[in-house]
């Protein structure tokens, strides 16, 4: 008698196993896919940066912020800039930071108040890791990633 019950239960449980294993598989695929996409998007963004600016002087609310530097950047206080510094002393189009042939150049625009290591810059200058640059009243230290790591990204771009 109990054997018959077992047979019936086992027969019915087939659907349960298919349902559970199917759901497990589906969840596994969906979760791993969405995590992979998110990770790839963030890491792709991080990979574009050739270095960063860390704000070390100026208004309290921006102090300590790290802003990534890409291959070509417009520094300004408008949202359309690549490196947005929201401070009234910064112009809308304040300066450019570009990398050309492995050299990272800071180009002041429209005679704006731009300093490199405390000296006013009027012409393009190369900047290095450890330099301090200032835009208006905002002061930032520069970090540029070592070149070797960056070559593959150059090829892709």
């Amino acid at each position, binding site marked *: 008698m109990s054997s018959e019950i077992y047979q019936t239960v086992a027969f019915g449980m087939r659907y349960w196993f298919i349902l559970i294993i199917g759901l497990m598989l589906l969840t596994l*695929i969906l979760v791993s896919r969405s995590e992979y996409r998110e990770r790839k998007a963030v890491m792709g963004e*991080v990979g574009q940066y050739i270095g960063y600016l860390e704000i070390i002087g100026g208004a309290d609310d921006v102090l300590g912020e790290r802003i990534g530097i890409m291959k070509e950047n417009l520094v300004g206080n408008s949202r359309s800039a690549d490196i947005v510094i929201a401070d009234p002393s910064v112009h809308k189009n304040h300066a450019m930071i570009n990398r050309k042939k492995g050299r990272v150049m800071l180009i002041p625009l429209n005679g704006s108040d731009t300093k490199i290591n405390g000296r006013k810059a009027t012409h393009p200058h190369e900047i290095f890791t450890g330099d301090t640059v200032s835009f208006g009243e905002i002061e930032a230290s520069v970090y540029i990633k070592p070149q070797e790591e960056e070559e593959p990204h150059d090829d892709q771009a």
Partner: protein
Amino acid sequence: MTIKRKGATSILFLQLLFILPAFGLLSLRDGKFDIMTLVAGGVLVFYNLFQYNMMKVSFKHIDRFVLLAAQFLWSLGLVVLYRLDPELALKQFVCLLIGTLAMIVMMVLIRRSRDFGRLNWVFMGLTLLLLASTLVLGRTTGGAKNWIDLGFISVQPSEFAKILFIVVSAYFLTTRDKLVSFIPYMFFTAVCVMLLVVEKDLGAALLISGTFLIMFYAATGRTWLTLLGVGILGGGAFASYKLFSHVRTRVEVWQDPWSVYQDGGYQIVQGLMALASGGLLGVGLGRGMPEVIPVRSSDYIFAVIGEEFGIIIGIFVIIFYLVFIVRGILIALDARSTYDALLVFGCTAMLSLQSFIIIGGVIKLIPLTGITMPFVSYGGSSILASMIQLGIIEGVAVKNGKADEAALEMMGGEMR
């Protein structure tokens, strides 16, 4: 910038919903309620949860999805083994515990994978020694001479030799670029494959030569040379078909198992009949007749799964392997050094090829060659080898995760 890693609680919960009802069902099988069976199910659920959390805490960047796919595969394997013979399941579980340790050891070792190259000649010697050892000391089971009896335990050296083969291959393929400098490696591969063919371990021979071709193509990208390799493999297969009677038998049995049902074809026919009687939905756990299938607990476990769980779950199992493979390849692509990438790629290729060879053999897609189904089949050496390969994959995933996190933190981001 934050990478928020997704939780896998739902998958673990679904795993519990699979394992506990399965063992619950088995506990009622003999007409009376057997509490020990349910306890065994509970132990497995607890072990999986514990392992997952322990790994996640000790290695932050472990690839959790590869681990979860493997966990499902061995849980299914343990359910089927328990249904066949509780004692086998217990032995398998002990091997799984040892395998987990081996996996962790491998994950730690892989941090120093740069130094593996220095031991390359030692690894090569060890591989050949392991393969040759069965010729002298081996015991013949199921036609193949691939077991060594150590008295209290018998091991299958080819399972470990194949991992060493991946390590040696990865080293050669990353350090050499001229064709001439590959000659020792090609010679080494040829000797390995020939030793296995002589031992009649055709599954392992096919596995190693297939892995060699896949890794060679992935590392060098030389299409014509790889095609030449495929040609040589085909030629070798044809030559061994002509030379060795056991190879010929395999092919003849594969072409028409029904005519030699009484001797050679018995296994394939029983497997096919099991799959057919299972149909799409299966006959229900514990209601099939796996007793008639030879080597049902190891090589032919897929036929038992097909009979009692049905073809749909059989296909799900294959998709679980695919998830495993896709994640493995993503880890390999993400690896920071070519050597690590090739190690992971080799392990992934080998595991996928292994599951293809045995599942293909069971469903009579390709000639049957005895080989275990990774993570699912019963077999201490097999599960240990699979766990070591999982350890290599996870170890490199941890390395990748650390590098990603370092890059992210430099930009002020974090990985949660």
